[in-house]
């Protein structure tokens, strides 16, 4: 297909998708291809021995949570034994933040793209600081995962079943008007989720104290919505994937060692390069030296035209990721140089409701030399520690060069 027409089709799908949060389930039951000995991770494919500290830490925690290992030593032995398989979330219609570890017993949210009929999945957010997704695996981390599975998940699942599903695109549109970029500021989206799900949570058949604890947990975690928003983005970008001739990027993701992209017209091939390390603000006691290179599936948000691409809509985010509001405005403006559309749905109030820059085109990245800007959480480089801060980072140019070279060599640009 002609590149221009192919890109128009991809851009149409990026904007007219209708993603709805339709339910929750256990990964083994609902995530395509999930198996008991399979652990899914963020980013492009990687083996246990090559994984960074926080990803290994999260795998250790997941094996303990699954009851397959009793401690760090036995988890490491099992992970290295070959009995456990590792695959990217993206190969299973899924996305998860940071280390992105999803194992068979974990509860997941289910997103349906009602326009195109595809589904996506994500795990549930644990909060900030010492969390599995940042590589922590202490008893407290594993206990919280069990509480989320045994107490929170059944109540949320029942509440979602009472609803007709949540129009998550409408929720994100609204949260952008309320100061969220929907990557590292999710306060409004989380509040909107609580507002909506609350009417059903009040009606579920459960112990009132447990229901109250679920409200308390979500209320105490202003990032609860990020995973669900990521699933929305995955459902949207998957619909725009596999359009022959298109040069629009449909995946950006990192495993803490490599940054990888996939391009609509280039099938399921990953184009990778060493991940950059984010620069940002650190929690007390941590410094730049502690930070692991860029990690997580969460830059599916920027791929969809929100997150770092919508920072101008979120003035308060600079207090979390660093810089000034002027910087946030210039980052968003710069992203119009490498994208093909101004989003028909996601708008920036401070730009007089201009649509967010949407649809990264590898052609425009190569033309300008401008790289996608991402805001992100930062994990400690060592396993077992957790989050150390949040900051800003760019995708590496080599990913885009490799994609262009592949397209030319395979004759897919004709």
């Amino acid at each position: 297909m002609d590149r221009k027409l192919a890109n128009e089709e991809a851009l149409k799908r990026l904007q007219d998708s209708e993603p709805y949060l339709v339910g929750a389930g256990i990964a083994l039951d609902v995530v395509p291809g999930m198996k008991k000995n399979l652990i899914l991770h963020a980013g492009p494919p990687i083996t246990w021995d090559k994984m960074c500290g926080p990803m290994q830490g999260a795998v250790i925690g997941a094996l303990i949570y699954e009851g397959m290992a009793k401690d760090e030593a036995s988890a490491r032995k099992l992970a290295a034994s070959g009995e456990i398989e590792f695959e990217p979330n993206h190969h299973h219609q899924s996305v998860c933040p940071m280390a992105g570890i999803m194992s068979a017993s974990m509860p997941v949210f289910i997103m349906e793209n009602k326009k195109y009929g595809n589904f996506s999945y994500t795990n549930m957010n644990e909060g900030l600081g010492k969390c599995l997704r940042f590589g922590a695996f202490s008893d407290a981390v594993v206990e919280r995962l069990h509480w989320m599975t045994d107490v929170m998940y059944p109540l949320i699942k029942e509440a979602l079943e009472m609803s007709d599903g949540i129009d998550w695109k409408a929720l994100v549109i609204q949260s952008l008007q309320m100061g969220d970029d929907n990557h590292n500021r999710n306060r409004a989206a989380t509040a909107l989720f609580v507002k909506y799900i609350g009417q059903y949570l009040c009606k579920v058949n459960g112990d009132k104290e447990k229901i109250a604890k679920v409200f308390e947990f979500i209320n105490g975690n202003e990032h609860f919505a990020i995973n669900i928003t990521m699933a929305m983005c995955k459902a949207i970008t998957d619909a725009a994937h596999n359009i022959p001739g298109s040069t629009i990027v449909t995946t950006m993701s990192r495993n803490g060692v490599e940054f990888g992209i996939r391009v609509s017209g280039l099938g399921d091939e990953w184009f990778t390069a060493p991940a950059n390390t984010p620069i940002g603000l650190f929690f007390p006691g941590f410094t730049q030296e502690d930070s692991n290179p860029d990690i997580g599936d969460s830059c599916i948000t920027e791929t969809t035209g929100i997150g770092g691409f919508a920072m101008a809509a979120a003035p308060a985010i600079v207090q979390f990721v660093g810089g000034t509001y002027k910087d946030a405005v210039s980052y968003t403006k710069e992203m119009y140089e490498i994208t093909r559309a101004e989003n028909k749905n996601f708008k920036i109030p401070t730009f007089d409701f201009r649509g967010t820059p949407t649809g990264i085109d590898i052609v425009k990245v190569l033309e300008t030399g401008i790289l996608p800007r991402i805001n992100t959480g930062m994990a400690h480089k060592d396993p077992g520690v957790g989050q150390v801060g949040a900051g800003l980072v760019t995708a590496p140019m080599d990913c885009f060069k490799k994609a262009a070279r592949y397209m030319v060599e395979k004759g897919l640009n004709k």
Partner: protein
Amino acid sequence: MKRVNDIFGKDLKVLNIGLEQFCADLKEQDVTAIQMDWRPPSGGDKEAADLLSALLG
């Protein structure tokens, strides 16, 4: 040559391309100056420019 020299007898109005500090320094000296947002094609990366040419045929 004479026309060039004429410039120095007039108030300077500067359009700066490149390092923003030059523009900032002139502004500090009350010279009218604006910064042009410009960068070389492909960010000056020849390999990227060559790949782009090949990609676009």
